């Protein structure tokens, strides 16, 4: 797989060749996926441009989390195409996707509760990063993690756990970051701080796909937004346009 698909690294030279600008880093074309006999994604189209933040919005049960799992390689695609940097990668395994630079933070804290903070960062080095770099970046950004490096991650507060999860994105230098429901169960102040960090990452050239139920948290920082209803993307465009549609679609759709 790794010979077939070149390592997409865009953070270093944003003013690279022209095709890099036009070819989306991550693209879904008519993607269908389901659980057993029940199909939940009926042909999803999405494109994540390099260096941008795409917000995937929609109510519960719309298929956001399944879309994120498909992008991360955790869920098989039953129809359509999943493309990384223009190459079809249907059926890619999650560990291959991770090594290609897709960092995914799943719904509900992407941490190992029975490992310490430091061991969690250690586990995050599976994609080739060095533990020292990871620790340095994580503790510099979130000093509280440095204080608790020997504590079990499961005993941290919800916000600290999410910081730890986000540290993986900080330290491993991925090309694409997938965030699923970052705000889940967190205080509004913590959510704001989390998204500030995400904004800085995007400014540094990272491409981010955020699935979020609470549109208000993410719309202000998004470059593009897509609205997902009943397993389909019903609208995509600038955040302002989508925001106008939100209330009618959430309530009426």
């Amino acid at each position, binding site marked *: 797989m790794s010979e077939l*698909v070149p390592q997409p690294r865009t953070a270093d030279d944003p003013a690279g060749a022209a095709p890099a600008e*036009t070819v989306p880093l991550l693209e879904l074309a008519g993607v269908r996926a389901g659980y057993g006999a029940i199909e939940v994604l009926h042909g999803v189209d999405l494109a994540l441009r390099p260096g941008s933040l795409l917000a995937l919005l929609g109510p519960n049960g719309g298929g956001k989390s399944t879309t994120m799992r498909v992008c991360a390689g955790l869920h098989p695609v039953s129809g359509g195409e999943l493309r990384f940097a223009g190459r*079809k990668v249907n059926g890619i395994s*999650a*560990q291959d996707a*991770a090594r290609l630079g897709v960092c995914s933070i799943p719904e509900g804290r992407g941490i190992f509760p*029975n490992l310490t903070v430091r061991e969690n960062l*250690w586990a995050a080095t*599976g994609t*080739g990063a060095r533990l020292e770099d990871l620790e340095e970046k994580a503790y510099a950004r979130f000093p509280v993690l440095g204080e608790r490096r020997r504590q079990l991650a499961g005993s941290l507060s919800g916000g600290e756990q999410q910081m730890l999860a986000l540290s993986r994105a900080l330290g491993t230098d991925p090309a694409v970051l997938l965030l699923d429901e970052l705000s889940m169960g967190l205080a509004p102040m913590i959510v704001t701080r989390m998204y500030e960090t995400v904004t800085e990452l995007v400014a540094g050239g990272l491409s981010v796909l955020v699935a979020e139920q609470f549109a208000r948290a993410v719309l202000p920082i998004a470059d593009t937004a897509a609205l997902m209803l009943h397993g389909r993307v019903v609208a995509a465009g600038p955040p302002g346009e989508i925001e106008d549609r939100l209330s009618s679609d959430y309530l009426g759709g």
Partner: protein
Amino acid sequence: MTTFLTYTILGLVLGSVYFIAASGLVLTYNTSGIFNFAHGAQAMFGTFLYWHFTERWGWPVWLALLLVVGVAGPAMGAALHTAIMRGLRGTADVTKIIVTVAVLLGTVYLAQWVWSPDEAHTVDMFFGAGAKVTVAGVVIRYHELVCLVAAVAIAAGLRVLFTRSRAGVVMRGSVDDPDLLRLNGHDPERAAMLSWALGSTLAVLAGVLIVPISGGGLDANMLTLLVIDAFAAAMFGRLRSIPRTLVGAMVLGLAANYVLAYLPSAGTFTGNLRVSLPMILLFVVLVVLPQDRLRGAAIRTRERYRVPTVRAAAVWGAVLVAVVYLYSLLLSDGGVSTFALGMTFAIIALSLTVLTGYAGELNLAPLAFGAVATVVAFHTGVEGTGLASYMSVRGLLLGVAVAALVGGLVALPALRLRGLYLALATMAFGEFLSNMVLRDTTEHELFGFTFTLFPDGSLVVPPPKAGPLDLRDGTTFLMTATVLFALIAVGLAALRGGGYGRRLAAMKDSPAATAMLGQNLVRLKLSVFMISAAIAGLGGVLMSAAHGTVAQESFSFVGSLSLLMLVVVAGIGYISGALVGGLLAGVGASVLVATFGDLALESEGMGNIYDALGHLVLVGTALLGMGVGRNPSGFVHDVIEGYRAMRGARPLLYGAGAFGAGLYLLALTGVIGTWTFALVALCVIMLLPVLGRMYLDEGRRDRPTPLELAGVDEPYTEELRARLDRELGLPALGKGGAGA
């Protein structure tokens, strides 16, 4: 003082070996979430290999040790993981347990096949039994020193592995969340395989070390159970902590040796106590363990069962009674009593259906409750003497009541805990019973009564008699057992359909949600466990009566396990699963093995082949059990689903019915033999759904063209070319290409 020191050293040595075995268990449990009941069997198999290399082939010890511990152990673990264990993610606890139990049974059968249990196999100590040093008057053999050093090295090594290496950290993470591990770029299956290889190596090492300490005699069953003693040590560390496991193992080893040193050696009591000490400690640890937190989420598993209606159960019960009666007409007297034995096993199997199938709890020793009921019934219910003796209904009922009571007592301490711990508690009880009660042949005096629990090591249990119903006659016994089975089955169907059954199902799916609805979980579990123990007790007394004479072996742990395994294989959520599993356990394997044994004795030239076939049947049943991981709902489920799909194929059903009736008439008139009839009927029942599917599938369309055949027998279009480009990962020639 020297005595004390000597026994202390011996205790520490035994403790070291227990620790080595237990640490392997903790390792695999922590990385794959599977409690490996086959751990002891792996140890046993490795030790037999070691014996084969050193004694049979005369290789030097270092080479044999290198091959067994360095190559065979890891290979065995890795193979187990690849072939079986990795398929167990997302299955219920019972499936996981049963698959490892099947591996245990299969390995034991295989070992008994390769290394005949009739020959003596002995393993020497390293450096020989004579190599020793004397410290402060205490003699220590080199072998014992090796054990101590190995245990310390392994304890330190595991600690370093788990906390100071990335591989160890990843292993620990793989239990928490294998998917998250994938997102981090690791392969959780590789971590799990590594841990299985390591665990298996530790098991093998423990086996090679423990056999010379415990006498040098190598016996497949005994060695397997010896390592099961290490379960208790693992439980000290709550299956998680390596240091606490070390402490537990040492306590266990020391206690076993102090019992031997300081308790009176008269009678069988001390010996029995020493053997069952680990199980007693296991039970105590389970009682002391703090309560588990209720997990919030519902437990999602792959097993699916359909709930029977009472009417359907009644109709099928009547059909069963009729079929059994018709079939019994074909059988000889011997055949009828074997069939009756199978039916009593089916009744015991029903106790598992209600407990495991409906409530999701586990009992690894159903036969032990049968033994309790039998002992009680024997002491209270036998009336008359000699050939005229019979078992009174009072004795039968009393036995059932005591079995239920004992079931409640056994389950009570473990009810607060998760399913696995209850399973271990029942296992500990089964072992305790078989070692302490069923071997208790000495006289006791209690409250002025003089009695012997198990006189002469065996009980002669006469057939029950109630008024005009005398079960001395084989056919009467068979029909009574069948009717009882049908009645209990209808009762269970009613139970499952009622409010109580729905509460059980709710508890099985989500204990937390059930508790929040105001249900008393402990009362639910306790009551269902008592019902189950009562049914097992009834079946047990009938089984003893069908046997005529029972001994400790009739209620063995291995027997319980293979019954449970076969019921799960058949489908533990179904009453028909209990019937098939019970018949298989009671009749199937034993009849087949006996038939092949007879054939082997009769024809000398073919003797080896028939002998091998007999062993193959046993190993085959275990293989069936390992297949449970792939099909956790059981094969009865598949057959039923097959027939359900066949409703549209009426002509086929009628044809098969007519064929069956004709076949039966032929058998009744003696044109074809009973065996032929049974085999042909079985084949028809199994093949009918397949035929039905073919019948129904006629005229269905085939699948879309695979990529390599695209364009071969259809016009090669632009669209097709674009599809090929996409599938091969070539850059598209459309908009993207034009832009560049």
